[in-house]
């Protein structure tokens, strides 16, 4: 007896608008100043009227196109009625039967080794308002505090099909979705601040030994606060459902086997049952009479499509081909967001060596960026300067090691806070000051070798009597004279000279 895992994800993302969805209050995460971003509309006061935020609609369309969704030519909003203290109107203005976008997909990588990819279907993405924030008294006593700063801020709810087959795939889907949303600039996807929230619907199709496929009851895991925990929660929920099935044989549709809501306890790594609502949800949706419907023409949709930037998946593929870099390097660079990838492309084009540029970006730049808590935007070595260093290496003017020395010296300049301008000229100056240029003038090396031999008679005698190690001292002497010389060249020339002597 084995089973197939069936997962569908519902993701809520906060849109990066300046104002709320139906009123002009600021859309700003501001937990330290509760209830300062409200007005009669988002407080649900009688007589107020919502008006739709144009920008939120544009961001929804942009996201829709990026997720290969169809944009509805006619869309409207509906009231979803329920009572909760953080929902002042006692209904949420959401979308029911005619969502703004529907029927698309997101492609994810399911096998890092083979690069195998699959499409996860997306049923719909609709535009709705967020609720406020309800804070419970920790000890379970006293009143709850309600902050309505968030009430009415714009959310896009993205509902996947149940195409996801493992906890790892669920995590991949979320990571790819987040990357795409960041690329599009539609959300900051900050999970800590609740800008991206995920609910997972999970069940199993148990394949019995007599050849039947039995679906287990569906559970919804709510409010998991990181992608890693989503993965852990699903893994533990899958095990729990299989054990439960073996124990009880309960299947989807059995009396009493209704959809269950579960939470996740990160400390135990297990999901737990949340007390079921006394009554089944009955939202009694009806068209929102206070908001007008929205229509799109094919030309409008086309205009948004043309304004879209390149999507991460396309960019990885293009960069691999254009700069001859590995899928791994392309992924690391693209995963760092648009600005980093733009930086890389400027360097790669400028120095004409995509592979070399990728090595530096994914190792040196990324490491120093993280160590020094910088972003690519505040990184003191700009693309044209890194380009100058890489060119010097490629032309054989300096060694890779010397290139790293220059790189670190420039960062040192920056961290000293001096008014040194970090430009290609500064690169030249450091190379000169530190004597890092590879000495191509063999005459100078020959002279230094002759001098070293004359000065170190003992070392020469030792070498001739078979002490190989003595040559190291001589190489050191020569290198001291010609700092930029390539040690390998010096060694070869020195051995030749000694053999002749």
């Amino acid at each position, binding site marked *: 007896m084995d089973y197939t895992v069936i997962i569908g994800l519902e993701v809520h993302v906060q849109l990066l608008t300046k*104002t709320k969805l139906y*009123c002009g209050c600021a859309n700003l995460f501001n937990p330290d100043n509760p209830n300062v971003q409200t007005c009669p509309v988002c407080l649900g*006061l009688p007589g107020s009227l919502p008006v*739709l935020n144009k920008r939120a609609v544009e961001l929804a369309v942009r996201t829709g196109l990026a997720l290969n969704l169809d944009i509805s030519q*006619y869309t409207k909003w509906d009231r979803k009625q329920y009572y909760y203290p953080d929902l002042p109107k006692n209904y949420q203005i959401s979308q029911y039967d005619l969502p703004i976008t529907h029927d698309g997909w997101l492609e994810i990588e399911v096998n890092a080794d083979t690069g195998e990819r699959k499409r996860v279907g997306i049923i719909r993405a609709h535009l709705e308002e967020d609720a406020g924030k309800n804070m419970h008294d920790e000890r379970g006593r006293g009143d709850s505090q*309600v902050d309505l700063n968030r009430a009415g801020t714009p959310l896009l709810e993205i509902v996947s099909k149940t195409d996801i087959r493992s906890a790892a795939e669920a995590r991949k889907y979320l990571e790819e979705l987040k990357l795409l949303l960041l690329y599009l600039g539609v959300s900051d996807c900050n999970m800590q601040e609740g800008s991206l929230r995920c609910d997972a619907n999970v069940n199993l199709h148990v394949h019995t030994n007599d050849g039947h496929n039995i679906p287990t009851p569906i559970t919804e895991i709510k409010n998991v606060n990181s992608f890693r925990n989503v993965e852990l929660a699903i893994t533990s929920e899958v095990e729990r459902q299989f054990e439960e099935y073996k124990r009880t044989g309960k299947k989807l549709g059995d009396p009493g086997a209704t959809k269950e809501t579960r939470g996740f306890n990160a400390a135990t790594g297990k999901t737990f049952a949340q007390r079921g609502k006394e009554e089944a949800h009955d939202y009694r949706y009806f*068209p929102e009479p206070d908001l007008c419907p929205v229509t799109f023409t094919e030309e409008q949709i086309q205009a948004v499509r043309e304004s879209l930037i390149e999507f991460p998946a396309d960019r990885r593929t293009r960069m691999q081909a254009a700069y001859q870099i590995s899928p791994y390097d392309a992924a690391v660079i693209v995963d760092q967001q648009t600005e980093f990838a733009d930086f890389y492309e400027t360097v790669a084009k400028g120095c004409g060596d995509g592979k070399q540029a990728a090595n530096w970006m994914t190792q040196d730049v990324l490491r120093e960026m993280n160590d020094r808590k910088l972003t690519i935007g505040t990184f003191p070595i700009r693309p044209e300067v890194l380009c100058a260093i890489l060119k010097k290496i490629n032309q054989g003017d300096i060694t890779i090691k010397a290139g790293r020395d220059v790189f670190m010296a420039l960062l040192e300049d920056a961290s000293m806070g001096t008014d040194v301008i970090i430009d290609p000229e500064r690169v030249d100056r450091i190379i000169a000051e530190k004597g890092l240029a590879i000495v191509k003038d063999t005459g100078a090396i020959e002279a230094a070798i002759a001098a070293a031999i004359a000065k170190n008679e003992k070392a020469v005698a030792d070498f001739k009597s078979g002490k190989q190690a003595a040559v190291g001292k001589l190489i050191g002497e020569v290198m001291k004279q010609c700092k930029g010389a390539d040690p390998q060249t010096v060694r070869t020339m020195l051995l030749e000279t000694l053999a002749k002597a």
Partner: protein
Amino acid sequence: MAEPLSLDKVQRVANLARLKLSTDELQAMTTQLGRILDYVDRLSELDTEDVAPMAHAVEVSNVFREDVVVDSLPRPEALKNAPKTDGRFFLVPQVIEH
């Protein structure tokens, strides 16, 4: 003809709307609501064969607001009508969760 409206159904709708109805009120509501539904039901006598379904009663579309911040209410104004506050938050009875 639609099914006659039952007391149970009206009670359920009342619960969903957080309305407490006495037995007399429930009876009266059931009769009155039933009459309204019967009246609306007469619409089904119309032949709508070639009429496109209407999703919204308003015929205007595409009314937008630019994404520009306007002043919000000062906090004391926002909290003014609340039955209970602590000067910063609305205070409500503990909602049972989990």
